[in-house]
């Protein structure tokens, strides 16, 4: 890591923590993928928010909803090679690891993994290219959203990412980008903060060198 990235990394971590994002570092992608499996293993079983015929369900959740018996990690944005590594680690735990067909699991799945293209230190924000609908679903329908982010991709503020965002939005193709700052939240009832309305209940960001 170069000296110049450290202040941005620190600022990003601080601001992300303020919005209940959990930031950690990994030496390499392999370690990061193992962290993903671990996150999946440690979380409570995924609630099935809608009927999903043919799916085996486990005990009722604390909200009295059926839960998924087999845990699922969705990682549509990974390269074939990286996916293979993750899939293998999942197999060892008995988790299902998927790259596509996420619409079959709209009742909810455990972990969604995606790459952030860049991040904004001033607000602890990750920018995720979500033009691919599968990647979008991976970050929306999961209970734990995990984002991978290269340290060098952390920029100081919104002004400094304008050009990059413009490039993403002016290709010849339709485009959909999501800025993510912490997990889904609401304060619509008595202004009491509640995490996890329609989106993820947790947000993890794993920082990678480079």
């Amino acid at each position, binding site marked *: 890591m170069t000296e110049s990235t450290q202040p941005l990394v620190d600022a990003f971590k601080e*601001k992300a923590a303020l*919005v209940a994002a959990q930031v950690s570092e990994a030496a390499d992608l392999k370690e990061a993928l193992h962290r993903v499996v671990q996150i999946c293993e440690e979380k409570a079983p995924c*609630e099935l*928010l*809608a009927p999903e015929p043919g799916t085996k369900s486990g005990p009722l959740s604390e*909200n009295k*909803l059926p839960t998924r018996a087999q845990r699922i990690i969705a990682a549509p944005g990974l390269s074939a090679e990286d996916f293979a590594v993750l899939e293998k680690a999942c197999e060892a735990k008995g988790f299902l690891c998927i790259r*596509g*067909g*996420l*619409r079959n699991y*709209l*009742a*909810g799945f455990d972990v969604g993994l995606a790459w952030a293209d860049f991040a*904004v230190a*001033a*607000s*602890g*924000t990750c920018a995720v290219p979500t*033009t691919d*609908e*599968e990647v*979008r*679903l991976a970050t*929306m329908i999961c209970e734990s959203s995990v984002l991978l982010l290269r340290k060098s991709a952390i920029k100081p503020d*919104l*002004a400094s*990412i*304008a050009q990059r*965002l*413009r490039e993403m*939005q*002016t290709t*010849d*193709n*339709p*485009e*959909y*980008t*999501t*800025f*993510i*700052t*912490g*997990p*889904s*939240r*609401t*304060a*619509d*009832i*008595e*202004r*009491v903060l*509640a995490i*996890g*309305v*329609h*989106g*993820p209940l947790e947000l993890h960001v794993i920082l990678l060198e480079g």
Partner: protein
Amino acid sequence: MHNAPKNLSSYHKALHESLENAFLRKALDKFAVDYRASRANIFKDVPERELIAQIAAAKDRSCKRMDELFQQFKKEAEKRGAKVHFAQTAAEANEIIARIAQENKVKKIIKSKSMTAEETLLNHRLEQDGLDVTETDLGEWIIQIRNEPPSHMVMPAIHLSRDEVAEDFSRATKEKHGNDIGKLVKVARRELRRKFIEADMGISGANFAIAETGTIAIVTNEGNGRLVSTLPKVHVALIGIDKLTPTLEEALTALLVLPRNATSQRLTSYVTWIGGATAVTGAEDGKKEVHFVFLDNGRSGLAKDPLFSQVLRCVRCGACANVCPVYRLVGGHKMGYIYIGAIGIILSYFFFGRDKARVLAQNCVGCGACSDICAGGIDLPRLICEIRARLNDEEGVSTEISLLSSVMKSRTLFHTLLKFAKFAQRPLTGGTPFIRHLPQMFSGEHGFKALPALAPASFRERWETIRPNVPNPQRRVALFAGCAQDFIYPEQLVAAVRLLAAHNVDVDFPLEQSCCGLPLEAMGQRAVAADLARQNAKAFDSVRYDAILTLCASCASHIRHAYPSILGTDSDAFRARSFSEKTTDFSSFVHDVLGLDAGHFVNKGQKVCYHASCHLCRGLGVRDAPRALIRASAEYVPAAEEELCCGFGGSYSVKFPEISAQLLDKKLEHYAAAGASRLVVDCPGCVMQLRGGATKKGMTLTVTHLAELLAENIK
């Protein structure tokens, strides 16, 4: 389900209902205090004023070229497969969207929050076609279940308690739910996920529409905006043409303020940028239908209005409600029509017509708390006054107001009347110095505060006898008295004259001066207000003085801010400008110019609290000088919410005594808690309100003008 008050008496009744709603009162009270603190905190890491000025300037530029931006947006968005529509009216927008639904054989629709869709009453129209429409923003869903309008633009259900929500959810899901908020949120998560899965069309609003990229941005926290725009095959975004912005940069700048102002966040959980129709895995043909429907509905007309075009700077952050002392008491259902808060009052006039705005436009105390924090730097109270003026022009005024206006036009008539009023009041005051006075002597009931009598001799009558003799003056000032001090509290001016003379300042008092005109302006009597401004500018030969000094914060702020524009096109505009520029408030002059500090006073250690008059702290941005002067001459005891409006607001306290009384109560509660023996103020109107309230309540608190404290302690 949307209601606007029809007349003042039904409005008063509705206000009373809100004032008696204990939950609402407590919730909004807490919100007001929490919001101010969290907002201040979250703005620490950005240059607030600079950003607001940038947003205002950028919005002003964009709204001059909305047509061009629309064409550019359309071209760019259509390149990427989106369909772009333009609707002149609300009805047209609704028809376009209903047609899209029909063409796509839509049955079930999910929506994320859109104030624009509230504006067009879109749900209503879609339901006519038998469509099943579900709001998915938690707050919007709650009020949809209750069939109520939103009471806040950002937190639509802020008026409801967890118990009420639990009951509503129990009814809607036909199963019993407790009042645990976390659990209730999970009920919504489950219920609405099913709706998301079933829906065949999603409708959203948009916070920005970027012309250079043909992209819209949706700012949300819950994540429903993403689901609405992703899961169904069809996505429609309804967008006011004021959301168009030339480049990404303007949107990114506004994003530094919008979430901070709305919910005290650096950024919301999600900002979704949608540029065109991305492939959809759920549809057989893999094709997404994306429609961007732009709505004019009066916006392009507004853009051409030299004063009101600033309304289009609004980013719908809702903050003008958050800081409004009236909203805090009565809630959003009584403080707007569809759009809520100060901006709601204004938009009701432009989007929904005079009928909806007539009564609402009266309910602004003019404290300026909203314009102080507005993300677009909109001069909201001034625009509300202007709407009153337009309503008066369009509909005529009450006899009471026209009587007052004709009296005020002539200084001699006004001042003669006051003289007679002084005699007439004698039998009524029962020997105490309290009674109703002008300009309120022409109207209304007050029970909540003791009202002052007119002074036995006005300041102008006493002037020749107290005029100081300063042989070698260091400075020369002229006093602008304002009605309240001239006729009710001349002792405040006498104190100031004593202090000034003691510090080698020569004082003059031009007798041709009259009312500053603010009360008339507030009643929408523009022509008389301009007349008065003209008279005053003429009465003062401003080149002769170092400063024109006023002890009334309201007069000072009005002369400084409104005179140049009121008299802008007059032949003697120059005179008005120089009069306005020379006008200074008392504290700033004494502290900043004369440099009086602890060395100039005997400090007996009296415990003194301070009330920061709206027109001084926000109107003129004067905050430190008065407090420094208190510290120099007494022991300053800070109190809670010093900058909160006392509820006087000139004629406001006559028109809405029930609200004025509650505002006053809150202030007095804070001062009682602070435990000082004296309260000083920089404005006679606030003295009247606060002293009247303290007397009525039998408090031992002495309320005076700051000048009196200082004069008593001259070394």
